[in-house]
């Protein structure tokens, strides 16, 4: 075999950095094969990534979403640089995870903070331009003398548009793009029959196919970029009429005037259009409101009261969940960490079954079992008494704690069993020789040593319970409701489920601003507790 110098195209370098000089020829051949497969795979993946990225940039530019377009462009360039140069070797491994981390974790934290300072929510859901458009559309009427054009429905890549014959000229537009003049032909009926770049949907199809019919009836094609000019709509599928709004937007003066009543609505710094007598149009836009969302919690008594009780219960729930299930797990572990007990492996499997049962199903299961009328718990264990577990605030709290302890004690049982078996036996023997009783050696030796290894777990367990949305929501939906509380808050709601109710993401009136402000508060609380606790456990470790 002749020794040929390795042929490495420049792009292949990352998968095969210059092989070390080797005394034998075959290692070149080996590394050459490596270049082939690895480089091809990388090329294919990067081609797909680039194609997707460029497509995203183009669509984003088309939709005027400049932020998304520039973020995608930056990411794409970074990815190409990282994977097609020899530099930044660790980044080749970190980049995919980092991109997801920044997009879906770091960015959303920042975005949460941003929303917390706005009045984003129902009635304030977009920019001012969007609010003007939406308001004017709501005020649109067909005017008696408005122009009517012969038209055809056109289609391109699943998007429908309207093409009209305007004095021998064909003009076409979609809901997103105002009318523009294009090449086309006008048929005998007066409507466009051919439109360049578009497929004309046959008249018969417009009249008979229900899906096309619906799409055509919903079409609203603006005449121009100025929302005051109105838009084309069709009722019969063959003629289009100009609809103009009874509201007029004056961008210079920042006012909307209702031409039927003459009322002038002025844009306020609160993100609404408000008339002189204080009446506001339903659609506003979101504006920065500073610390208002944070202050609202303290100034609005109707909100503060239930939120305080929710906060108290969140701490109680998280602390009790950890303490009770830790205690129970440790107790069971101590009892059954005894070589004289037979079939310990079998017993252990039985004990931890609740842990292996999916948590959301357990919560739903207990929801049915605790039902006051039909539930098995009242029926079997309480002689059919109608105890209102889910409807009484105190009983509901006890019940949800019971459920969470049932779910999590096996974890502590397993952890403590492991920790007990890892204890140094000589220390225990020494204590015994010194005359320490069982309780004394447990309190002074076993427990402190155990806590060293389990305390960090208890902290993360606390943080987890603090935000255990699933169990709270699945078991009782946070209920029973606190009477008089706004936003459907309930007595077993913990902060995260309360935030869910307030946010309105699941329907109803939304208040994203307030919900995000509360999220920020919880972030800070959880972060501070974790930091403090980790510092404490580090001290614990030093003592041990």
């Amino acid at each position, binding site marked *: 075999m002749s020794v040929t110098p390795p042929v490495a195209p420049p792009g292949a370098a*990352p*998968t095969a950095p210059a092989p070390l000089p080797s005394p034998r020829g075959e290692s070149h051949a080996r590394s050459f094969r490596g270049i082939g497969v*690895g480089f091809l795979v990388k090329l294919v993946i990067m081609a797909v990534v680039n194609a997707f990225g460029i497509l995203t940039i183009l669509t984003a530019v088309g*939709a005027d979403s400049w932020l998304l377009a520039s973020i995608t462009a930056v990411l794409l360039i970074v990815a190409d640089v990282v994977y097609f140069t020899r530099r930044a*070797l*660790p980044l080749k*491994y*970190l980049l*995919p*995870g*980092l991109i*997801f981390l920044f997009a*879906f*974790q*770091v960015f*959303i*934290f920042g975005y*949460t903070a941003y*929303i917390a300072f706005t009045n984003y929510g129902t009635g304030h859901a977009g920019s001012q331009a969007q609010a003007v458009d939406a308001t004017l559309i709501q005020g649109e009427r067909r005017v008696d003398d408005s122009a009517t054009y012969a038209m055809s429905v056109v289609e391109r890549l699943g998007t429908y548009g309207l093409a009209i014959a305007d004095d021998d000229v064909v003009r076409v537009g979609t809901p997103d793009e105002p009318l523009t003049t294009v090449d086309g032909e006008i048929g005998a009926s007066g409507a466009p029959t051919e439109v360049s770049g578009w497929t004309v949907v046959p008249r018969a199809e417009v009249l008979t196919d229900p899906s096309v019919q619906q799409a055509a009836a919903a079409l609203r094609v603006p005449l121009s970029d100025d929302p005051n000019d109105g838009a084309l709509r069709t009722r019969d599928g063959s003629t289009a009429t100009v609809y103009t709004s009874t509201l007029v937007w004056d961008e210079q003066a920042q006012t909307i005037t209702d031409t039927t009543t003459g009322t002038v609505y002025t844009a306020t710094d609160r993100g609404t259009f408000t008339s002189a007598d204080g009446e506001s149009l339903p659609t506003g836009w979101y504006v920065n409101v500073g610390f208002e969302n944070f202050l609202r919690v303290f100034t609005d008594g109707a909100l503060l009261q239930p939120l305080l009780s929710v906060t108290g219960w969140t701490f109680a729930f998280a602390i009790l969940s950890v303490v009770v299930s830790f205690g129970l797990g440790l107790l069971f572990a101590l009892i*059954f960490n005894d*070589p*004289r*007990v*037979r*079939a*310990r492996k079998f017993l252990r*499997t039985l004990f931890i*079954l609740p*842990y*292996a*049962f*999916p*948590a*959301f199903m357990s919560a*739903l*299961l207990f*929801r049915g079992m605790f*039902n006051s009328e*039909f*539930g*098995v718990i009242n*029926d079997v264990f309480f002689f059919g008494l109608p105890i209102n577990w889910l409807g009484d605030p105190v009983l509901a709290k006890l019940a949800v704690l019971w459920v969470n302890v*049932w779910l*999590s004690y096996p*974890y502590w049982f*397993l952890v403590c069993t*492991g920790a007990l*078996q890892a204890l140094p036996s000589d220390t225990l023997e020494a204590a015994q020789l010194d005359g320490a009783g069982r309780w004394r050696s447990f309190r002074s030796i076993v427990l402190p040593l155990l806590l060293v*290894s389990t305390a960090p777990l208890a902290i*993360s367990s606390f*943080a987890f319970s603090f935000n*255990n949305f699933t169990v709270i929501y699945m078991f009782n939906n946070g209920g029973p409701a606190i009477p008089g509380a706004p936003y459907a808050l309930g007595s077993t709601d913990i902060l*995260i489920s309360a935030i869910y109710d307030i*946010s309105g*993401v699941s329907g109803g009136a939304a208040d994203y601003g307030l*919900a*995000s402000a509360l*999220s920020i508060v*919880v972030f800070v609380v*959880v972060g501070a507790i974790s930091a403090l606790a980790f510092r404490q456990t580090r001290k614990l470790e030093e003592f041990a």
Partner: protein
Amino acid sequence: MTVTARGTGRDAARTTPAKKRRWLAEVGWKYPVAALIAFYALFPLVYVLSASLNPRGSLASSNALFSSVDVANYAALSGTSYWTWVGNTLFIGGVASVGAVLMGAAGAYAFSRFRFSGRRASLTGLLIVQMFPQALAFVAIFLMLLTIGEVVPALGINSKLALICVYLGGALGANTFLMYGFFNTIPIEIDESAKIDGATHAQIFWRLIMPLVTPILAVVALLAFIAAFGDYILARIILVSEDNWTLAVGMYQWVSNQLTSRWGLFAAGSVLASIPVLALFLSLQRYIVGGLTQGSVKG
């Protein structure tokens, strides 16, 4: 774990009454206690099994355990969207866990094998980011996906891919530490000898390291799958239409109304869905507990 000194205590106890009393005081009482704990642990599970076999399918009729045994509820599942939800859950959980494993392993490899500037800082950064639960930012996630969806509908609201992407956002933070420790236990001499033989870093990663760290890969995959399987809040917000729901979202709808008679369906669905999870969990128990004690926690 093996039972050492098997039976010696009991055999000895049979000999004299005094020893028997001592056995009862030290070991014997543990069996009734075990029975009590087992009852506490198992009653709900036995109950759900019984309810799933009760053809009447209502909450009230399920209270007499095993009063009748019938697979009607299981058969009725095929008349619902249950199997679609199972498919969605498997797809979302599967892709999310494979992605989490790949990203976590790559990240851990980079931190464990390369020395680069900012390494310490990035590790600390990951530890801090990981402390803040993603679920708390659900409002921002919702609004962000609404915006993205206007440009790329495949990654917007009501897209399974979008949900997977959100789950993958936490992949690096949650798993890197778990894997990092494990990667560090693989001697670096293996890498070095392979490098001398002319292997590239990619070859070392895929051919040498990945096979050696399979146990931790399995644990991370399972944890990521269980996390996706059990998530409600993000799945509920992102997946809007019924044919996109996961099991958690779908089955909640069955029993959220206390008066509906879908209890039998829920019970049957739970039994079917939990058996593979139970089996997997029990067989991988040792690794999972090891993994949990180092990383994330269920409750």
